[in-house]
Every structure is written in C-alpha cells, then in structure tokens.
C-alpha cells in the first residue's frame, strides 16, 4: 500500500512538472496563433482567445510575393545545407572513427572550436568577402556559413553513432564483395540512421531558424529567407503595424519545423529499437 501511494505521488509530481514545462513552452506559441487569427482591429484587445476568428492575415502574407519567395528560399537553403552537412559530416565522422591517422583528436577539437565561435563576430568580414566574391544575396552565400557552423555538430553526432557500430560488420561486407563505398552505404549508413536523422534535424533547424546570417547577407527576394523576410513586412497601410501578418508568417514557418521534428523523431526511435547491434 505504502509503496503504491508513494508511487502514485511520484507520478503526480511528474505530471505536474510536465504540465508546467509544456505550458511554459507553449504559451508563447499559442499566443502567436491567437494573434494570427484575430482581425486587425482586435489585435490590441489583450484577450487570449480571439473574439472573432479570421484568416485575413494568412491571405495577406500569401498574396505578398515576398513571402512566397522567402518560403522557397528558406526551404531550398535549409535543405541544401542539411544535405551537404550530412554528406560531408558522415564522411568526416567515418574517417575519424575508422581510420588511424595522427591528429584525429585535434580535428575533433578543432571542429568543436568552430561550433563555439560566435557567428556575430564573423558577420562583418563575411559581408565584405561575400560582396567581393559575388556571393552576397545568393543561396550559396547562406548555405556556406550554415554548413560551416553545423558541420561540427554533425561530425560529433555521427562519430558517436559510428563508434557504436562493430567494425566486424564493415569487414564482413568487404569480404562479401562490397567496395568500401558499398559497405558504407549498405551496411554502415543504415545502422547509423538514427544518428543521421538526429544530425539532420539539428542542421535543418539551425538553417531554418537563422536570422543573423539571413538578415546580414541578403538584400532581395533572391535569397532572403523567412525569418529575415518577416522583418521587412509592412502593414496594409503605411500607418498600420503588421502584427497580424507577422504572427501568421511565424506560424507558417514554425509548422515545417514541428513537422520535421515529429517525423524524424519517430524514425529516430524506430531506428534505435530495431538496431539490435549485437553479434
């Protein structure tokens, strides 16, 4: 009995704690959704639930060609950055884990140092360099820094996963007639899938959410991503604050991230349980 009541009390506290954390995390999001659904004249009514629900802000942003191209830029740049970082990261991590060469530790430490580097400190020089190199306001101009800043994370995550894979599996694949690349693609990569997804999510979110690089290194619809584009929103008239439109745009850009995380999260869990790595 005693154990049971203690158990129940413990569960209660866990539930309370969980609710608190979720509330704390989700209230701003809910507020944003609420704002995006209120008609323009109600925006300042200080009510949590909108008195009247309207989709006019959503209509506004999608009529704006700037937002559509920003969405396209965001998706494209984030996707390319993610793919490139994973491709390079997987190669680098695999080499670091599997090959005996001097300076492996140094490489990992250096990679970490890159990740620690404050992006703000390189924005100025980067702006000048990109302008003279012609990378300013292009996709490549954003993909490069995103990749650079997320690669260390990808390498560390993937290296941790590769380390868990028994080397015998790779040897077995080689003896079975696989080239080193085939062994990597058919045997190692599928087993490291959870790691690949984890790294992928992290890189994607960094690129998708970034504001600093996006605002500094773009100037037109050619490469401006959503977070930067939102800052350039104007109201329907000169004297109107575009609060509703900004809220609607924010909701729209949050959705893909949530979707991606939920989708990949299932893959991560599935990957971890079906791995069964034991000879």
């Amino acid at each position: 009995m005693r154990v049971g009541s203690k158990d129940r009390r413990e569960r209660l506290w866990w539930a309370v704690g969980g609710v608190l954390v979720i509330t704390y995390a989700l209230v701003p999001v809910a507020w944003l959704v609420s704002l995006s659904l209120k008609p323009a004249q109600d925006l300042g009514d200080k009510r949590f639930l909108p008195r009247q629900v309207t989709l006019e802000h959503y209509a506004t942003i999608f009529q704006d060609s700037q937002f559509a191209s920003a969405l396209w830029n965001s998706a494209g740049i984030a996707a390319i950055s993610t793919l490139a970082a994973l491709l390079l990261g997987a190669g680098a991590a695999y080499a670091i884990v599997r090959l005996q060469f001097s300076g492996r530790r140094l490489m990992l430490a250096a990679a970490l140092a890159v990740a620690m580097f404050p992006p703000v400190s390189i924005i100025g020089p980067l702006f000048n360099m990109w302008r003279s190199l012609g990378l300013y306001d292009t996709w490549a101009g954003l993909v490069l820094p995103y990749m650079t800043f997320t690669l260390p994370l990808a390498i560390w995550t993937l290296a941790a996963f590769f380390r868990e894979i028994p080397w015998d599996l790779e040897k077995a694949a080689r003896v079975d007639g696989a080239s080193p690349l085939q062994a990597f693609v058919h045997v190692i990569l599928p087993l490291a899938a959870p790691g690949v997804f984890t790294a992928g999510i992290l890189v994607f979110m960094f690129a998708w959410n970034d504001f600093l690089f996006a605002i500094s290194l773009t100037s037109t619809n050619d490469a401006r991503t959503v977070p930067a584009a939102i800052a350039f929103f104007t109201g329907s008239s000169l004297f109107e604050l575009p609060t509703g439109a900004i809220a609607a745009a924010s909701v729209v850009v949050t959705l893909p991230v949530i979707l991606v995380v939920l989708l990949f999260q299932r893959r991560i869990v599935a990957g971890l349980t079906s791995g069964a790595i034991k000879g």
Partner: protein
Amino acid sequence: MASIELRSVVKRYPGTTAVKETSLAIADGEFFILVGPSGCGKSTLLNMIVGLDEVSGGEILVDGKVVNDLDPKERNMAMVFQSYAIYPHMTVRENMAFPLKLARLPQEEIATRVEQAAEILELGGLLERKPGALSGGQRQRVAMGRAIVRDPDVFLLDEPLSNLDAKLRTQMRTELARLQRRLGTTTVYVTHDQTEAMTLGDRIAVLRHGEIQQVGTPRQLYEHPANLFVAGFIGSPAMNFLPGRWSEGRLQLPLGAIELPPEQVGPSLPTDNPLVVGFRPEHLRPASGEGSNTGALDFTARIEVLEWMGAELFVYFDVEWSGYTGFILPQELETDSKDTGRRVMVARIDPACGLKEGDTLHLRLAAAHLQVFDAASGANLRPEIG
C-alpha cells in the same frame, strides 16, 4: 576450391611485429587450423589471407597466383567472424543474399542459392526473421549460411564457436566438420581452443608470439610436440612437466632415475644442461609394486584431488624437488612460471579402481612416452619415432 601458399609473410605494425616471417602451404580442400593463445597473430594471419590486412612483406598465393594486391572482393573467399557480424538491419534472407546481390547474380539464382543454403543449415523457417530475434546458435548458422551461398574458393573462420555455450559449441563443431567434408572447400580455421583444433583439423599450425611453432597433423602434435610450448598447449588436461638431468646414461627425475632406450636418446642428450621432461596424464599407469627397471619408473603418489568424469578419472598429486635448476615453462602455459620446487601432476586412471582422496597410489611411468626438452630453448630433444 583453391590451395593457399604463404611465402615469408610478415606483418609489422609501428613498434611491433604481429606476424614474423611465416611460410605455409595449405592444400586444396584441406581443413587447416591456426591455433594459439590470444595475441599470437593468428587472426592477423587470417585477415591477411582474406585481404582485410595488408602484408608488410612476403607473398600470399592462391592457386599459384599472387593475391597480395587484390581487394577482398576479388579474392572470392568467405569469412565467418567471431561476432558473426551478420547485418542487424537485414532479415536472414537478405543477409545471405547480400554477397550474391553484390555479385549481381540474377534474382532467381539468388533465391535458389539462399534456399539451398538455408536447407543445409536448417534455417528454412527463419528466413524472414531479423538477427535480433535469433538465438546465438541460429546467428552462427546465418553467418555460416552467408559464407556458403557464395560457393567461395576458401572459407576463413575466425573463432566461430567461441561465443556459444559449451553444449552448442560441441554440436556446432561436429556440424562444421561435416559441412566442410560435404562441401570440400579449403578451410582455414582460427581458434585458441586446442580441443577444436584437434578435433576439426586435417593439419594444425601452432602459433606463439607471431611465430609458427609447429605444423602437423593433430597426431603429430600430440605425440611429438616440437617444443615445450606445443607440448603444453596441446592436450587436455595438459602434459605434466618435471625438471630433469641427464647423467650416467640415465634420466634423473624428482621421482627417481629412469633409463631411456637407445633409440629414444637420439645422438646424445646434453649432460649438465637442465632438461624439462614431459609426459601425458594417460601415460601414468597403476603399478603393482615399487622399484625401477629399464624402460619404466615406478613411484608412489599421495592423491590430493580426484576428478571423476564418468568414463575416466583424473588423479592429482604433488611432486616436490630440490637441486634442479632452470625449470621454467613458457609463460602462456603457466599462471606462475617460477621455479617453485613443487608441481601438481595429473594421471588419467580407469575409474574402476576405487580410489579415495588421501590414498597412496603406485604409478608406473613408461620411458617410451617421455618427452625430453631442453629447458633453455624448449626444443624437443627426443628424435621422432615412427
């Protein structure tokens, strides 16, 4: 089908030599065993044959052709790993089909071959399972299956049974031997277990410190070990060792002196040099009385421990000595390799004799079965008989 030849093969790592100059010839269809304690270089040797490790020197020939620079996939050898190394994300069928897919065989052919292999290994009902849902013995079979579907020139097995429990290991050992006879494929088998080596191999190479100690049939290794290490490594329970000295035409042992028949003495045994004398547990026989005569030494022993195995009885007794020097055995054979002046001997006796612990037992040691080693070099000084 293929024969394998190693010519002065060497493997060096920075700072160490894992395999010293090794030359071997393995005949087509032979079941060849590489045996030795851990770290003796046997797995390295295997990895060099299959091409996972590069050789630092020498040549490896398969059917007379040098394969040093061939990639593993060009050598058409199949390997079974100690960890089985079956792919956890593939079903049993996919695991076995993997090498065939890489070889770009047509779908129907792959299906037939996998079915055949599954039948041979009794894996029929398990083809759609993932390795996670298999027992240790079944995983072992899958690893074997993946090796045999390819119909390779050579099988390489790296301690394939060491992760199984004792009963299953004995069973799989028999199956493995049968499978090899049936397929007739040249097989190189690495193990640290001398029982596996003795029961499976057509021929055995004993390795120590990256160096081959002796190559021969199980019988040759057992009856005429080339040195102390082989003598102590092969056989279970291990050979008994005592210090000895050759003087006045007799072999002086802590148990007494014994005359050796002339054909066993060889050219001459070195006087004064410390010797190590070995004899196997089954070569001690109960004797009726005391006293020595030519060709045999009778002595009494007080039984310390009895191990009754059903069909045989192991009798352990102590022998003490003083005045002998240089009695040191190879490290791998001994937990305590120092000259302590006391050793436990074991005799294999017919269990029908009704002995108890603490009893005194008359034993006879026949000179014909004695092995005499030079204590310093470990070399067997007795000429090979027969």
